[in-house]
């Protein structure tokens, strides 16, 4: 599993192969040279035996060689860092681009069904951890392996027997590190769970601070906060302490190795252990330095392994999205042309539900002449908005068919079908960008005049003009525009577009009546000759629809025009009366 994921990440490195190879080469050279440094230091020390006994010729040569080695090693280390950056950041860029692109083609049901924060987390922190952990971790691991192998060879050249002693003692630090990692793992899990809860609580309370104030809930909020804070602090303290034990503990183990090497080496030097062979002081110095360098990567390996595991689990989350099914490819389907679309719509015996065990729409049929104005009314949750999801094929019907100009909508590409509809939803969508960009989202090549025209048609021109930079003011969803103003901008988008069919889902719910009344004229003009679907609570806005569908629990219970329905004296009539009953 882990191997597969690592292998897959490597395939993302492919465009940066060059850098991967260069990184490996530079690491090899840089690390090897840095390993030679202690050898040369040892040689130099051997040249300075004592008073009046220093070989300056040899010392001079060695120090010059040493300086050159150091500088070369530094250059290669520097190059390695540059190449690994190219490799890591390039791979991350590609992966992130692919992930965001994938989100654009995921089925809506996937996006509806997964928490927003979780999806964003995959695009941002998960990929960051992946980059830090895997690619930097890889570099560390590689450097470590080269160091271990290199020092091993060097130690062998100095003294085989003491080297064997060192190798035998090596697993000690690995075992210690492993034990500690296991111990701290569960505390880390508790800490991150606790941190997640703390974040959620803060987000809720501070995010709705005005509500907290309005209910004078501050004290109780602080109490709940304090409890969670204590939990987080305790968990964090444990996790951090356990994790930080690892370093001194392995350092101690390394110290033991160092002491052993020193003692055995020294005893060898004095000839106490003839089987070890006699070492010079310089050789012993070098060997000690090798032993030191040899054990160091083992210290880091436990950390690297933890980081790798973390990175792999993040990569897994990223790949989960990349591997999920996109909306099926329909590029071979027919492209529906706006000019050819008349807007005659027929829904025949469709069936749909979001979850299999909760049937929603069953055996629903309706017919709309081209240019008709169809209103859908009903209680919240009766399936009104679902009809829109099905018409635009955000969700696919499970049975029956939807015919547009007598052709099943499934025959067309989804994109070209959706372009036939102008849609305004109750939930406004404003993205970070200028007012003009937001309006012209429906028509990117619109001129400034066209944009202003659209804004004027929905009576938004006035407030836009009052913004600091007019149409060039940068706005976002929470930049201070009221819900109504945002809704006006969304309607202006449609005005600019002029699509053959219209869908207005509570499109004016946040706009005051006076403005709505004024926009109504623009709407009327827009709806002229266009098949339109209107969903509204305000019955006044749908009175003059050509046909009204009353929905209850996913089915049509009444239909007809306003007068017919009032005459029927059923549910619609009841709704309508209550509106003016006061």
């Amino acid at each position, binding site marked *: 599993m882990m191997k597969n994921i690592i292998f897959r990440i490597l395939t993302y490195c492919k465009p940066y192969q060059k850098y991967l190879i260069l990184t490996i080469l530079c690491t090899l050279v840089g690390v090897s040279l840095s390993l030679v440094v202690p050898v040369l230091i040892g040689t130099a020390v051997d040249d300075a035996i004592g008073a009046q006994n220093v070989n300056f010729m040899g010392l001079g040569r060695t120090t010059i060689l040493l300086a050159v080695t150091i500088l070369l090693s530094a250059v290669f280390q520097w190059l390695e860092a*540059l190449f690994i950056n190219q490799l890591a950041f390039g791979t991350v860029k590609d992966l992130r681009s692919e992930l*965001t692109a994938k989100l654009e083609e995921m089925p809506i049901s996937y996006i509806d069904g997964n928490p927003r924060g979780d999806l964003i987390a995959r695009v941002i922190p998960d990929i960051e951890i992946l980059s830090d952990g895997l690619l930097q971790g890889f570099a560390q691991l590689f450097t470590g392996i080269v160091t271990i192998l290199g020092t091993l060879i060097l130690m062998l050249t100095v003294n085989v027997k003491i080297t064997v002693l060192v190798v035998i003692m090596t697993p000690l630090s690995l075992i210690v590190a492993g034990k500690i990692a296991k111990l701290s793992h569960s505390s880390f899990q508790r800490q991150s769970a606790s941190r997640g809860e703390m974040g959620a609580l803060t987000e809720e309370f501070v995010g709705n601070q005005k509500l907290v104030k309005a209910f004078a809930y501050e004290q109780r909020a602080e109490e709940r906060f304090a409890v969670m804070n204590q939990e987080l602090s305790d968990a964090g303290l444990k996790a*951090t302490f356990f994790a930080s*034990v690892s370093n*001194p503990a392995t350092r101690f183990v390394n110290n033991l190795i160092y002491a052993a090497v020193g003692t055995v080496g020294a005893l060898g030097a004095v000839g106490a252990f003839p089987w070890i062979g006699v070492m010079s002081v310089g050789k012993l110095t070098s060997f000690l330095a090798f032993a030191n360098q040899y054990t160091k990567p083992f210290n880091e390996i436990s950390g690297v392994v933890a980081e790798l595991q973390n990175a792999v689990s993040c990569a897994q989350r990223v790949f989960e999205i990349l591997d999920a099914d996109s909306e099926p490819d329909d590029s071979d389907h027919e492209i529906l042309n706006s000019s050819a679309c008349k807007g005659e719509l027929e829904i025949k015996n469709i069936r749909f539900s979001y979850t299999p065990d909760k049937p929603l729409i069953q055996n629903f049929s309706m017919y709309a002449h081209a240019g008709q104005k169809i209103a859908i009314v009903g209680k919240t949750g009766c399936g009104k908005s679902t009809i829109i999801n099905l018409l635009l094929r955000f969700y696919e019907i499970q049975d029956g068919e939807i015919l547009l100009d007598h052709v099943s909508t499934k025959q067309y590409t989804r994109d070209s079908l959706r372009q036939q509809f102008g849609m305004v939803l109750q939930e406004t969508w404003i993205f970070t960008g200028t007012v003009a960009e937001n309006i012209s989202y429906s028509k990117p090549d619109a001129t400034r005049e066209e944009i202003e025209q659209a804004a004027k048609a929905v009576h938004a021109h006035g407030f836009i003009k009052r913004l600091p930079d007019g149409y060039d003011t940068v706005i976002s969803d929470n930049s201070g525009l009221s819900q109504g103003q945002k809704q006006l901008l969304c309607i202006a988008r449609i005005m600019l577009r002029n699509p053959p069919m219209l869908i207005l889902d509570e499109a004016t719910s946040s706009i*005051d009546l006076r403005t709505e009344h004024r926009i109504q004229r623009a709407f009327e003009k827009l709806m002229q000759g266009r098949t339109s679907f209107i969903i509204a609570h305000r019955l006044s806005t749908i009175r003059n629809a050509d046909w009204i569908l009353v929905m209850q629990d996913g089915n049509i219970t009444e239909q007809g025009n306003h007068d017919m329905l009032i005459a029927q004296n059923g549910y619609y009539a009841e709704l309508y009366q209550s509106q003016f009953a006061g």
Partner: protein
Amino acid sequence: MQKLLKFLKPYQLELILGPTLKLLEAIFELLVPKVMANIIDYGIVRQDTGYIARMCGLIIILGICGMCFALTCQYLAARCAFRYGADLRSALYQHINKLSCTELDRLGTSTLINRITNDVTASQTGVNMFIRLASRAPFLVIGAIVMVFLKDPQIALIFVIVALLVGVLLYFVMQKTIPLYSKNQKKLDQIARHTGENLDGVRVIRAFSRQKQEVQKFSDECADLEQSMLAVGRISAILNPVTFAVINLGIVAVLWFGGIHVNAGGLSQGDLTAFTNYMTQILLAMIALANLIVVLTKAQASSLRVAEVLETEPTMQDGSEEINADNSINLNDSENREIAIAFRHVSFQYENAGDAALTGIDFELRRGQTLGIIGGTGAGKSTLAALICRNYDATTGEIRIFDKNIREYHLNSLHHAIGVVPQKAVLFTGSIAENLKWADADLTESEMQKALKIAQASEFVNALPQGVETHLVQGGRNLSGGQKQRLTIARALAGSPEILILDDSTSALDYATDAKLRTALREEYPNMTKIMISQRATSLLHADLILVLEDGHCVGMGTHDELLESCEVYQEIYHSQMQENKKK
């Protein structure tokens, strides 16, 4: 920053003891090469195996002591950091609770959340790392210089030069990279925001078939981020190699000059070995410090952001009076009821706003009466409600609640007396019952049911398998908009407030439910003063007083009938709705 140091004060013991232990550990660590040098100089030279064995034992003892010191230091560091973090987080949260809406608007909630969560954590990590690691490198350097100085002052000079060079390098890299790191973070935030917006607007994007452009935009943003990450990378890439080179060249110098001194007889071969060992130790510590620099600078930036919030003083003065509605007055005598709310020439301007949001508002409302507020988008309706809650103080004029200036009341008491149903239906994670207990922690079951019933919510709540114990996830994602709105109304009613504010909070209800709600409110809570903000004239027909707002001015005031007579704006609003009605 001063503000934050205060939070470290209770942990002085840890702060002093931690680095001291670290210093001891460093000294012990430096002693190891020294002992090894002795083994070489005396043990080997004198062929004294007993000495060698004893020194070996000493190294192990030094190692054990070092480990104990290090562990104690780590523990103290973690304890200090996490307790400091917890204290700071609580203090920050309590401080935010004290801030008034003016400051909240200025700071913005999303940054506040970030500061409580990420910034406090970064600051805490900084403290931990500082005690644990940052103090280690300087100690090692200073310790090494002292040890070398005692043996050979001239060689010590090399150490000083090397330390200075590395210090300058660290400073240079930090200064160059810190601003770039924060720029990168901004770019990353932008991608996060863009992703969020794309998830929110997925239907709109697909309806307009703009996926390709969005993909392009993302890919541009990612490439841009890559470029600036590479730019930082280029600078920080020099740090480790140059440190490596400087320190090792220092060793070269030590070897050469040390060689001269050895020749002259001042130094032994073992000393030379020990010196090169010190340098290597310093190198390791410096590289650890360099890797830590990013963490420490992030911690510093975060600490500054936390301090900024703590230094923001609440601009609103709390009062001391409790709200006491006099229940002895004959409530049936509607003319003589006490005045619940009075506005006297009230004007209000948001901070940094060009125009006043409200200008010269005057009205009086008696207890139990209903005030209707109607007007266009941005007319100032919600602002007026916010002033009654004392979210903001009026810029000029006076607001009186139960015959006292609103500023005299204790804010808590004021807020207990007012029930608010906000425009946006927000519920909190937890059970429905927990949500309903927001205003009153001791709410009884029957009170809860009453509130649900009047809010027209009991039907659907009791139909849920777990009734009021149903758990709401993510602000009630498992409920429809209308259901959420009814629960927010029930939540406000559950506190039995003196004053109820419905801020256009029935928009997600269908007409029949809305009408039932209004009737129930009128009949069940005759003493409750109600303020209804609405865009539907029909919702306000029965209000005792209707304010018609336009651009922050009151352009009409009176009952429905009076306004229909006299107020042009009201006529237009009303007729726009009724006109179609008449067609019938």
